[in-house]
Structures are given as C-alpha cells and as structure tokens.
C-alpha cells in the first residue's frame, strides 16, 4: 500500500476509496503530536478509514517537539488520577515499544535533590506517594551517597529520593515511529491542514480546513493547545487551555560527564521546578521555566527566563555554567487549570476530546491511545478485530547506541553512511538521504534535524548549514 501523505492542495482529491460513502473518513484525528500520532497508530490496527490531520507542515511540531524528553515512572502523579494510571501504563507500553522499534531510551534514574531541611523532610511523603502510585523502587539516600553518585553537584545538597527507573527518551523518534506505522497501515496524513470550523450533522462531521472540507463520521480532538477551541466548536465548555511556557537550555555534549542522573527539584506549591537532565543525544538539559501565558504562539525565549535558568543551574551543577550552550528553546504545555487529563467521550456526537495532556503526554501517549480507542468503541463505532502492525525499526539517534558513523558493516554496504555532513552530530549523508526519502519525509531544516540531528549540534550550522540546505533543496520534487 502506498502511504497517503499530503501537505498541499485540496483534500477532496485525496479522500478514501471504499464501500458506501467513499468521500467520508470513519475517524479523523485532529492533531499529529505525540498523542495524536499514537491514537492514529492504534486506530491503524483496525479496518477503519482514518485520517490524521495537523495544522503545521510536520508531525510532532507543536508541544511535542519541545519538552524535557523524559520517560516518567509516574511516581509523583496524583494517586488515583487518570493521569497516574495512563502514565504508569504508558511507561510500560512505550518502554517495550522503544526496545523493539529502536527509539533511544536510557534508564539513567532520577534523584530528587533536597537542598534544605524542609525539602529533606518532604522526601518520606514523596516516597509514600510513589508507593500509592504503585511505584516501589523509590529510596531515600543520604548526602554522602548522593555526593558519591553525583560528584559535580553544587554544595549544600542534604539528600535525595532516588527513582531508579526514570529514563530519558528521544522525543522526536517516538511520534515519528507512531506516524510512520500508522500511514504505512493506511491512515491518511494531511499536513498544513488547520481546522477552521466544524459542522456536526446527524451522521457526519464536516470539517472546514485550510485545505478544504473533510467529512468524517467520528472525531478525535487531540489538538493540544487548541483542543479547547475545537471542543467549544462542538458545543462544550469542559476546559480552557492556558499555555504554560517552558524555556530550556541545551548544553554541549562535553558537559555530559558532569551529570549521571535526572536531577529533579523537590516539588513545591510553585510547581515541579527546574531540572538538570542528560539527553539521549549526549547533551545536558536545564529547564524548564513555568510561565502562564495567554498567547498560544509565544514559543520564544526571554532574557528573564534564561537568567532564571542559569541561576538555578548554577546552584544545582555549578560546572554546567562554564560549558558552551548548544541550543535554547521554549515549548508550551497545554495546562487547563485541572490537576488531571481531560479525556471524555461524547457518544451522541461521535466525538472524543483529549485535553490537558501536559508534560507527561510523551510517556502516556500509547496508554492514552488505547484508552481513547476504548472510549471510541463505547460510542458505538464497530472497530472489528485488531491486527498486529508490521514491526518498524527507526534510525538510531542515541549516543549510547551505535550510530551509523560507528558501524563498519553499514558503511561497507553503503559508503554514504561513512560520509559525514553534520560534523558536530556526526550525521552522515546516508542518514540525511534516508530522512528526505522516508515514509514521512523531512520537509524543512527543522524536520530534518528532528529526524537525523543534522544541524542540531554545537556549531548550529557554521560548518554544515549550507550543505544541509543544499541537500534539502535537491530532494524537493
């Protein structure tokens, strides 16, 4: 089956064939972030005509592309909440999926570091909360052990709660793997397709999009920051998304030796606070800030935000501030003012709303997808019998695993994997070619960077920027 992926032109030409009403999808998933792609992948297991649509030119291009890239255990969730359940379930699902799909995951463990007596005193309660969340490996360690395990930690740390199973994961390969499997199994992916208006009829929703009308029997709203606006279009007033900006600083790979664990602050009333964490690409992350905004496009960084991060970072890991900065970015979490996910089915409307998926969305994505599919079945859609999707192996971006530039047999078979284009990240011409011709090809420098790391390193294009752009131009039809 040739995958259907469109990014331009009217949708009318690309609607599904099939029995009966040939111009209507069975299910349309609005929003191709990590949760939307996970839902599409789950639906791809059934004999449904499914569309996945997104307003931007790539999958995972909103909140999903700019997060802290942690695969959570859910130890600190609100016990008994939907989020706690889906994070716990999702962590297991995604860890298993990543292992077979080649999504880089490193189980580095987390340390919640107590910097004063009050924080130290809060650790037993956090350990007990972890137990209530069915997480039993948490353990309090003393200052001496903490110092031995993180020798570069700033002065004054009194102890920590250790969460040995917290892991780091590639945030970009994950939705790309979901979306790739989905479209290979027949889901139609329509990009640059923003929903302007929804008209809900007796049997069919008609979406007015920037690329023309789209008809669908069932609708799943996974629109992230815009989920509340779509929900209102369907007549509900269940939640309001208030974007919460998180700015982050990515430090050079030479800083990686400074830190071995995800270093979390002890949470306070003001939020989860600023963490220091390794990334699977071998960098070190410092962030995020937490700023309540009203602009859903305000993904810029600010001088105040960066100054705050540097101040916090200096306390946690003083040596970090001497290292070079590779990148600065900001993401917007879809906060709703509720302490839980807002996932709800409206059977009468053949509609499922998936709102308020915050920083745990990456971890919970596969569990949310399974839950949404269950809700969809409950609205009366006959899903039929699920099938197994053909397995998928994604390009390897993690530093802890052999990347193509280190694989003699791969280079012997195709010298393009030994020809490096992006020197900082050691990305080969072969990987760039593959990403430009893959099932869901990169269309921009940013898209290529998320698929290969090209241009994402310390020089930020000083050496390879022009060459990478030339390769993208060559690949354009």
């Amino acid at each position: 089956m040739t995958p259907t992926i469109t990014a331009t032109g009217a949708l009318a030409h690309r609607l599904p064939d099939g029995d009966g009403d040939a111009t209507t999808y069975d299910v349309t998933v609005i929003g191709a972030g990590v949760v939307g792609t996970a839902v599409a992948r789950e639906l791809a297991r059934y004999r449904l005509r499914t569309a996945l649509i997104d307003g931007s030119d790539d999958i995972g291009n909103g909140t999903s592309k700019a997060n802290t890239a942690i695969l959570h255990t859910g130890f600190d969730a609100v016990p008994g909440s939907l989020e706690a359940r889906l994070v716990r379930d999702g962590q297991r699902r995604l860890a298993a999926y990543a292992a077979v799909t080649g999504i880089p995951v490193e189980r580095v463990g987390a340390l919640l570091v107590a910097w004063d007596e009050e924080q130290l005193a809060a650790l037993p309660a956090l350990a007990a909360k972890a137990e209530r969340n069915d997480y039993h490996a948490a353990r309090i360690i003393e200052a001496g052990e903490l110092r031995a395990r993180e020798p570069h930690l700033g002065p004054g740390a009194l102890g920590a709660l250790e969460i040995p199973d917290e892991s780091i994961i590639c945030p970009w390969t994950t939705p790309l793997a979901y979306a790739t499997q989905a479209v290979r199994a027949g889901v139609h992916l329509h990009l640059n397709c923003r929903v302007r208006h929804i008209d809900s009829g007796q049997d069919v929703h008609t979406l007015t999009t920037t690329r023309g009308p789209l008809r669908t029997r069932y609708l799943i709203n996974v629109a992230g920051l815009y989920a509340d606006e779509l929900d209102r279009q369907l007549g509900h007033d269940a939640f309001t998304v208030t974007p919460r900006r998180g700015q982050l600083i990515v430090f050079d790979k030479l800083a990686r030796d400074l830190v071995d664990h995800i270093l979390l602050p002890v949470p306070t009333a003001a939020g989860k606070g600023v963490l220091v964490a390794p990334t699977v690409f071998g960098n070190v992350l410092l962030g995020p800030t937490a700023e309540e905004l009203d602009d859903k496009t305000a993904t810029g960084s600010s001088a105040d935000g960066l100054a705050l991060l540097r101040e916090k970072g200096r306390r946690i890991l003083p040596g970090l501030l001497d290292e070079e900065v590779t990148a600065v970015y900001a993401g917007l979490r879809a906060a709703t003012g509720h302490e839980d996910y807002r996932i709800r089915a409206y059977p009468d409307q053949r509609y499922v709303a998936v709102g308020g998926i915050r920083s745990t969305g990456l971890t919970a994505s596969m569990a949310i997808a399974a839950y949404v599919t269950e809700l969809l079945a409950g609205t009366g859609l006959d899903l039929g019998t699920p099938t197994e999707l053909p397995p998928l192996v994604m390009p390897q971006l993690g530093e802890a695993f052999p990347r193509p530039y280190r694989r003699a047999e791969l280079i012997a078979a195709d010298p393009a994997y030994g020809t490096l284009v992006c020197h900082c990240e050691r990305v080969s011409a072969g990987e760039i070619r593959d990403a430009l011709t893959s099932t869901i090809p990169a269309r921009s420098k940013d898209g290529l960077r998320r698929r290969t790391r090209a241009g994402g390193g310390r020089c930020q294009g000083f050496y390879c920027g022009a060459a990478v752009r030339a390769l993208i131009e060559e690949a354009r039809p």
Partner: protein
Amino acid sequence: MTRRERTVDVLVVGAGPAGLGAGAELAASGAGHVEILEREQTAGGIPRHCFHGGFGAGRIGGGAIGPVYARQCVAAAVRAGATLRTSVTVTGWAGPRTLDTTGPTGLERITARAVVLATGARERPRSARLVPGTRPPGVYTTGELQQAVHLFRQRIGTRAVVIGNEPVSHAAADTLRVAGLDVIALVTDQPPSPLPAAPVRARHRTPRLTHATVTGLTGRERLTGVSLRHRDGRTTTLPCDTVVFTGDWIPDHELARRGGATLDPGTRGPAYDASYRTLATGVFAVGNLLHGVESAGTAAAEGRAVAASVLRHLAADPWPTGRPALAVDAPLEWIAPNLVALDGSRPLHDRFTLRTGRRLLRPILVVGQDGHVLHRERLLLPAVPNRSFRLRGDWLDRVDPHGGTVRITVH
C-alpha cells in the same frame, strides 16, 4: 566492530592553513609518514569560502583571495610529501596517540608517534550567545553565510543586520552585498572604534550602531527583526529578514579536551607552550584551535613552526612536566601561549598574543610571578576588544621554573 589499524609517524587533524602548514613542513623536514586528516570533502579550511583578498600577504589589499590561498596551502603540503585524506572524520581517542576515524572507505584506528591538532575555531552561534526570542530561519554565522553564498549560491534574503564590528563582520557584510542584500546596520555593544576604518570599507556607508546590545529576535516563519537596547536605555527593533552573528570565536576544542589536553580558561583552546606542546604527552596543537581567530597567515606560520618541536619529540625529547601557567587579570581576556616551556623555546616572532575585554589607551602591561615583577611594557597603540596585541617574550628566562602562575596585569 572492524577497524583497519595503522600506524603513521605524525598525524595532523585538520587541513586548514595551520594543519597544512604543519604537514608541509613536517613532510619536508623528514618526519617520516605524515598524514593530514580533513573531515570536509575539500581541504583548505575556512579560506575556502572567504572570497576576499589579503591572504598570504603581510598587508591589507595584497595577497590572494581565500580559495586561491587554500589551494596554495593544499598544494604545498602535497608537494612536500604529506598524505592528505579528505572526508575522514576523527571521532575519538583509542589511546594517548591513537585516533578512531570514520570515512566513506570505512573505520580506522590510527596510531601516531606524534599528533598535531589543527581543528580551528568557529563563531559562537546565536544560541550560545543566549540571544532570546523566536527561532525563525534567516539567522546565520559568517561561516554558514559565506558557504551558502559562495559555495552553494543559495538565496539569502533582502535586508540584513550584521552583529559585530571586527574584520569578519565586514567580510560578512561584503558577502551579503554580493548576495544582493541591503546591509542596514552593523551592530556592536562596543564603543565607537578608535582605529580608522580601512579605506575599502569607507565605500559602503553601512550605519554602525555602537554601544547597542541585541535583546531578541522576532518572527516565526521568517525573521522579522532584531531588537536592540542602546546605552541610554532606548530600545529599537530593526526590521530585517536576515541576521548574521559574526566573530565571538570559540576554538573547536572537542578532540583536544577529550584527549586530555586541558583547556586554558581564557582562550578555551588547549593550554600550550611556545613549542605548541599541550598537557597531553605527544599531542601538539596549532592554529586557531589555540586562541580563536587570528589571520590565516598566523595559523599557517604556527603550523610550520610546530615542525621543529615535533621533530625534537620524535627524536625522544622528553615531554615537559610542571610547566608554570601564564594567566591574565581582567580586563585582559587571554594570553597565548599560556604555559612556560622552561627549555628556552620562544613564542612565534618572540611575541605573546593577548586580547582585552575593553579598550585600553596606551596601557602598561606588567608580568609578575609570586610577587616579583618580571617585565613591564607600555603599549604604543590602544588595545581594543576583538583584536590581538602583542607582548615581548624576552623575559621568559627570568621565570622561576618551580614558581607559581605567571600573571599579566594592566596598570
């Protein structure tokens, strides 16, 4: 993992002017099998995309343009008998003088009797300068811009702002004009330059905004402006679709650092002595890896000068230990070389190279060690940021080999 294992006498990493200079001189002086590795497909380093004159000559306006100079450097090294291999990337160390490489022909592990690092320097990108705002396309360093325009003939934009006011900034402005852009301003946080502008620059009346700090970038699909704060607190936004961050060089020190060649805190390049010896035994360093950007001619001269030291090392000269460090006090930023060799070796042209963080009018430089003054020298010209100035080296024999750090201060 299968790696082809080989040995050579001298392995030079990087085929810019410094590495090619080292390779040429070493091969010509009988150092044995001298191999130069270059990760780019074409050797020659940064001059490959510097389409302006002044290369290989001692005065402004003379000499070759960059690409011609790059080819001359390559030809000289090859003619001298050095083996030059392009598209070969050094990916790490497997031993004190053993390097792992990746290239289209496969993986190798090369052991050398001496390693010369000549990995050069790059401009700090916008992110490393912590310039806030959005992340639209249209943001360059000079290196990316020059390659885009001169090597790939890519379309850049229409209205540009250049951040910086040093030679490379003017080269960037020239490249932008060649590409058909209007250069609307050169922006610097420094005060107006006390030095007269070179005549060639006077033709272009690009406004220079001095004492101005970049506070942010705006735009989503494309850059729309550069926001500035002036010294008096006024803020403005310059509408433009292109911005080039120039200068602010950082040595490409990854390999040096991973190989145990401790960095000098000022230059951010490996600490080294006048014989180009780093703190890692058998590992030498030359060129802009040592000190951020000096001219290609200086890099090449350092490359040629390392040959004598490498030959001495190959003849079983012991690697020095316990070399006192040289350090500077603010407003000075760094000094190079920054280790005292103790064997009488002198820096290139018997001069140290220094930089200052702020303008100094006829400063007196004082060299001291453990409370003793070793040397005092008044500079005849002002010292300004982003331009090197020199300090005589004839006091080196007065350094106490067992003493503490030698400090250079400004009076």
